[in-house]
Every structure is written in C-alpha cells, then in structure tokens.
C-alpha cells in the first residue's frame, strides 16, 4: 500500500535548510571581507516613501542616501555597515510640508539630522548566482529613538568590467522594501494628524548602488 513519504520529505527539507547557509556565497565573486561605499555616480541613491492615510496619500523621496557596508561574498551572514538618510533631503512636493516634516513636532531634523540603519549581521534566505536575498538585522534610528529591526534586502554583485569603468571596483546593488511605524519612534506630529492625514506606518522602498573600495 502506498504511504505518503512524510518522513523522507521532512528529512530532505531539514537537510536543505541546514545546507543553504553552507552554500550561501555569491557565485564567482572572490571571498573575503570587502568594503562597499554607496556612490551616486553609478546611480542616484535615494529611497522612496509613502504615507497612506485616509485623508491624504503622500508620496515622497529621500535622496542623498550615504553609507558603506562590509560584505564577504563567501559569508553573507557577516554583513555589517551603516546607511544614512538626511532628514532635510526628504521631499514631498510641498515646501511648507517639507519644512513641517523637519520640524520639532515631526522628525526634528535640528536634533536628529539623520535617519540611520546600522547593520550588524544578516540571515541568508536565498542565493542565486550573484544575487542574494538577505534579512539584514540591525539598529534603526529615527527621531533619536533606536530600535532593533530586521529588514529584507536583495544584494546583487557586478564584477568590474568595461561597463563599470566610470566608477572603479566591483558594483554592488541593494534593494529593499520595508515599513516603519511612526509610534515606534515617538513621532507623534501635531495632535490628531497621524492616522488621518499622515499614515501610522510609512512604507519605504528603494535601490542603493555602491562600489567596492580597498
């Protein structure tokens, strides 16, 4: 009589789950800790964000993203680094609203000029050639409040070639999509606005480009 091979499937799944980290390295990229610096010459580093509230949907961007990270293509879990976004660079298309965004009631750019994410390590979810899906773990700091967060990122590597001659070194791209709850960072705004005109949660996405430096 046919018996569904639950045990075999479970064993195979367990073996694969253990095996993924062992193969968690980018194909054809030399091993070793490598420093990567974001560089706008490859492409402008900016994040987009969206506040979706019942009364208003605000689309914004945050150019001027800077930072660097250290990545070992043979040990992606050891990813570390820091990405920084200047609050004053955030745009909504309305200069008055941009000023309010940087005001004391909101992000208080005078006291906390940057939003940062300090990556401490990563968990590898999937590696496909020179592309890896990771969960970057670290400290997100916004409005002077630090919170441990895990953010999904896709890291992609491009070896130095004639195509990449305008910026020396290998090129590395990081794409991400996550959300930030304003109350987690004590961003209260003016009374009654969050939840009506400003979303309680802000969706953030973007692609960042950097190059390897020695």
């Amino acid at each position: 009589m046919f018996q569904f091979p639950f045990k075999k499937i479970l064993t195979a799944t367990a073996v694969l789950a253990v095996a993924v980290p062992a193969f968690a390295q980018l194909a054809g990229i030399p091993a070793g800790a490598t420093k990567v610096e974001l560089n706008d010459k490859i492409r402008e580093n900016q994040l987009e964000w969206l506040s979706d509230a019942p009364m208003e949907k605000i689309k914004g961007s945050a150019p001027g993203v800077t930072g660097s990270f250290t990545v070992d293509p043979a040990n992606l879990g050891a990813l570390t680094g820091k990405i920084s976004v200047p609050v004053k660079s955030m745009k909504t298309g309305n200069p008055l609203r941009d000023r309010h965004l940087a005001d004391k009631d909101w992000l208080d750019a005078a006291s906390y000029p940057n939003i940062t994410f300090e990556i401490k390590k990563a968990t590898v979810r999937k590696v496909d050639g020179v592309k890896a899906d990771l969960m970057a773990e670290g400290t997100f700091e916004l409005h002077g409040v630090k919170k441990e967060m895990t953010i999904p990122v896709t890291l992609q590597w491009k070896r130095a070639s004639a195509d990449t001659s305008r910026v020396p070194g290998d090129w590395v791209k990081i794409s991400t999509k996550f959300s930030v709850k304003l109350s987690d960072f004590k961003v209260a705004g003016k009374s009654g606005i969050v939840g009506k005109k400003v979303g309680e949660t802000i969706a953030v996405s973007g692609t960042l480009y950097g190059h390897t430096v020695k």
Partner: protein
Amino acid sequence: MKGSIAIVCFVLAAGVMGWWAASGQHAATRFEIPVETIEKDDFGDEVKTVTWKKGFELGLLDGAAPAAGGLVGLGVILLLLDRKKRG
C-alpha cells in the same frame, strides 16, 4: 448686477473645486510633482526612479477650500444685498 456677480462667484467656486478634483484631490498643494520612471539599470534590472518637476496641483486645505468658501460667501452676501435692494 450684484445677482449676476453672485452667480459668477458660485460658478467660480464650483470651478475651483472641479480643478482640485481634477488635479489629484490632494489635501495640500503640490508645487513639485513626482515623476516616476522605470528604466533598466547597469545590472540589467528595471528600477523605478523618482524625479521632481515643477508643477502645480491645487490642495484642498490650503487652496481649494478657502478659495471656494470665500467665493460662496461673497456670492451669498451679494445675493442678499441684491434681494435687499430689490426690496
């Protein structure tokens, strides 16, 4: 005369609200409009880029509502004055 001006005020108020409705129904006026473009990057992937271009999209709270409200108020006053004048 006052009655005609009042009607013009009401029509203008409706026009302002129509303009607001047609320009995206934003709560706040936008002076720069985000333009999203999708193009291939050097990695061969399609990526979205946001650039800002000068523009004007009327907002409700800081533009359309005060303007339309003012026009309707003026129209009502003119209408009342007109009726009063006519006796």
